[in-house]
């Protein structure tokens, strides 16, 4: 190939268009990407090593940091792994509260990434709205857990503290507000906006076969009409007690994925309402004894849940001591962020690279770890 027409650029890590501290080095010819390579690792902190150094309870404070966009899923997977190895029963009320937290986290994650996606195509109003709406959910989180972003709320054996009735009321009010005021505005300004549709339709297509081949899940897979959702396939927490549909698309393109994000949020609102209506009374934490001496038998477990970006899993190994022997994090966007970039970014036009990266929900900290 004629090198003179080739240009190589370093897209990120310091660039508004990339999702977080992450880079893509790509060559392009004209304005079409010809080859691309992920430039990851800027957020590597060695979590898996640090977790081997800390006793079980301490890691509950560590895990949320793995993915800042959606910290609660980490707390949940960690707790699930601990309970799976230790064969610990969780009170039903705790299961419900966990689901509520996870769905709130899903909404704030989706609305945030819709804002980010919109910013990627220059729709800054939407980014402002998205971030603002997310902030109201963070207020709810702050009231429940005592922190805006890193909640350290879901714990092995249950959750840290109970939720008061008035907080439930607040959540329901917020859900109504979202459904009746904010989402309709969003609908009109973004989803009915021909400009936005043009920028997203038919862009960054990942077919069903490609998605399954590389292990991409969540919206990426569902945008191809397959309703694969771990909340249905392997129910955890209280998801077997609630009714909801799994939104899908037909074309596997950015547009479908963003619509899935929108519909997901509506489903989450539905789920939260059901959960709050029929949440049982009772304790929210099983007694695991002295927190400094948590100990579970030898064993291992691969646990996974449906994050907003798809399958989020931990492989946890216990050697029966006070610390985990090994924890391996499987981030939802790992295959896309590392393998997908090389395989499926080429052919995209430069202007669409941010669309590609953001609509696929690439979240670097979860594969940098």
């Amino acid at each position, binding site marked *: 190939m004629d090198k003179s027409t080739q240009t190589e650029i370093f897209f990120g890590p310091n660039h508004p268009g990339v999702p977080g501290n992450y880079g893509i080095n790509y060559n392009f010819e004209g304005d079409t990407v010809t080859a691309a390579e992920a430039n990851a690792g800027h957020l590597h902190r060695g979590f898996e090593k640090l977790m081997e150094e*800390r006793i079980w*309870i*301490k890691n*509950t*404070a*560590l895990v949320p940091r793995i993915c800042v966009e959606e910290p609660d899923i980490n707390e949940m997977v960690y707790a699930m792994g601990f309970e799976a190895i230790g064969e610990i029963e969780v009170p039903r009320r705790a299961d419900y509260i966990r689901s509520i937290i996870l769905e709130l986290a899903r909404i704030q994650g989706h609305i945030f990434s819709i804002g980010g996606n919109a910013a990627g195509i220059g729709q800054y*109003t939407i980014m402002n709205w998205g971030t*603002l709406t997310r902030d109201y959910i963070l*207020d709810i989180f*702050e*009231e*429940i*857990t*005592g*922190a805006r972003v*890193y909640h*350290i709320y879901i714990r092995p054996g*249950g*959750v*840290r*503290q*109970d939720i008061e009735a008035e907080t439930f009321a607040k959540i329901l009010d917020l859900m109504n507000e979202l459904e009746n005021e904010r989402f309709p*505005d969003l609908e*009109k*300004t*973004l*989803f*009915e*906006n*021909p*400009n936005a*549709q043009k920028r997203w*339709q*038919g862009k960054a297509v990942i077919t069903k076969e490609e998605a399954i081949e590389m292990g991409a899940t969540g919206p990426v897979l569902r945008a191809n009409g397959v309703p694969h959702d771990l909340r249905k396939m392997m129910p955890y927490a209280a998801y077997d007690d609630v009714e909801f549909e799994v939104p899908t698309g037909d*074309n596997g393109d950015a*547009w479908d994925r963003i619509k899935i994000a929108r519909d997901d949020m509506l489903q989450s609102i539905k789920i939260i309402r059901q959960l709050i209506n029929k949440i049982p009374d009772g*304790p*929210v*934490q099983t*007694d695991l*004894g*002295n*927190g*400094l*001496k948590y*100990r579970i038998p030898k064993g291992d477990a691969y646990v996974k849940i449906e994050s907003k970006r798809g399958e989020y899993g931990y492989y946890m190994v216990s050697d029966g001591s006070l610390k985990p022997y090994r924890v391996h994090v499987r981030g939802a966007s790992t295959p896309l962020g590392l393998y997908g970039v090389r395989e499926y970014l080429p052919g995209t036009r430069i202007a669409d690279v941010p669309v590609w990266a953001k609509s696929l929900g690439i979240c670097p900290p979860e594969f940098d770890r």
Partner: protein
Amino acid sequence: MANDKKSIFSPVTAFKNLVKKPETVRYPAESNDAAKRYRGFHINDLEDCIGCSTCQEVCVNDAISMVEMLDVPAEEGQRSERPQIDYGRCCWCGLCVDVCTTGSLEMSRDYSYIEIDPDSFIVTPAEKDINQVDHPLGYLRDEHSDLLDLKRIDMEMLEPEERINSFIEIVEGFSKEQAEKEASRCVECEICTDTCPASMNIPQYIRGIFDDDLEESLEQIYEDNPLPEICGRVCTHTCEGVCAISHRGEAVSIRWLKRYAVDNVDSADYKKVLGTEKIEQNNKKVAVVGAGPAGLSAAHYLSVMGYQITVYDSKEKAGGMMRYGIPEYRLPYDALDKDINYIKSLGVDFVFNTRIGENITLDELHEQYDAVFAATGLHNGRSTRVPGTDNNNVYQAVNLLADIARGKEVPVTRNLVVIGGGNVAMDIARSMARIQMDKYGEVNITVTSLETEDIMPADQEEIEEAREEGIVFKPGRGPKEIEVNEDGTLAQLCTNCCVSVFDEEMNFSPTFDDSDIENYECDMVIEAIGQGGDNSYIDDQFEIEYAGPRIKINDYSQTSVDWLFAGGDIALGPDVITAIKTGHDAAVGIDMYLNDEL
């Protein structure tokens, strides 16, 4: 795609926000307070905090370190250290608040601290947080988030109606599961170690139980205590009184855990575990007078050091008060013998039925041995000396207890009164109750004491158990006279109300109110108001210094006579563990003395 609604005008709806009230929080003009559970900067009540350093233990980021604070006085069960928090490490997880043993550490809702100098991000939180301003309380621990295990494992005990029929041990001991669960409650703060008279490695041996490594536990225990079977049953356990967990919950059952550890190591393995199979002898001889806890302790540590030990005792078996004072239902003889036999097996010689001063004088011992350790204890019961005590139906508790221990038939009547409020009074009352039950099928015993129940010296659980066994308590009564019938049998004990036991200087000088008289019918009275010792075997031959009623000793249990060491009740009271300590000190002291280091 066709099905997607689209209109070039729909985004125009955004303009309606022009007339809406802006949602911006005009910080700092209008401030937006943090939520009520917000995890802000730490505050710490320096009065309540005991410096147990559990927060340091749980801190994820090693952000907490304990700093010496000399202005806070360290009382019993406290350290003069307080947590210092490094906000260059802290991640505001609040685990320290969840685990705080006293609940002194809390978080405020203050979240904003800006500084140019990075070295200012460290603070020792007090009533005010790092900004030195008052803020509403933020995150607080509740029963769900609490990380401590506050509930102790209940010890299985015989039911009163069952135990009253025999001298079988009441406490049944932990199972493996119970012991490991109970051991897991320990936070390893070592405040108990600071308080234990023998400063035993308590967290270490509890950790051994938690890890199911009882041999480790045994080693740790024998570091400072060669009579664990005994202490595991009858120790006064001051450690449990100061246990960090006891501030918000029930103390760890340290005594029962020790008992579990030693009960479950086979005495045959002791020498292997403790590495005493082969002891280097140094051909020096030491005499120990008195085979009580102090004597046995000294004998053990000395013989481990390689000395040749001979223990003299006036009774026919070893154990002293532990055998002849403590009833079998509290301390079974096989438990006692397990400890003693191990000490015997180290090559310690015992000479029984030999009273120093009568059969052999201290001087002769001095000639035959390089050093002498005297721990003869207090064996002579004191009398109230009220009218009627000379009657032959009035007995001394210590003598009766010794006879019971010897298996002798002891006199018992249907209706008897015990005078005294200490553990000896409980022991004799409960022993006699068992004998009464055996003989007459019913318990009819009254215990009177000068002290009202709140200041009675006896252990609270002893009093409760005695009550369960049908013993009646008449606290706050002073014996006035024992009225005797013509035929020499007892009629009744006449008591008056004891107004106060101690005077301002806390010296013993009871005052009575004769307007308030109560009489208790009885045909037998037992006095259990304390014992005295007989040190004539020393005093006859040597000028020895006394500190009050007790012999004066230094940190190495050495008396004013350099080759004579003393311990146990004659030197330092009042309990077994203290006696063991004096014995241990004496062993160290004698070793130094014989190597000319003391």
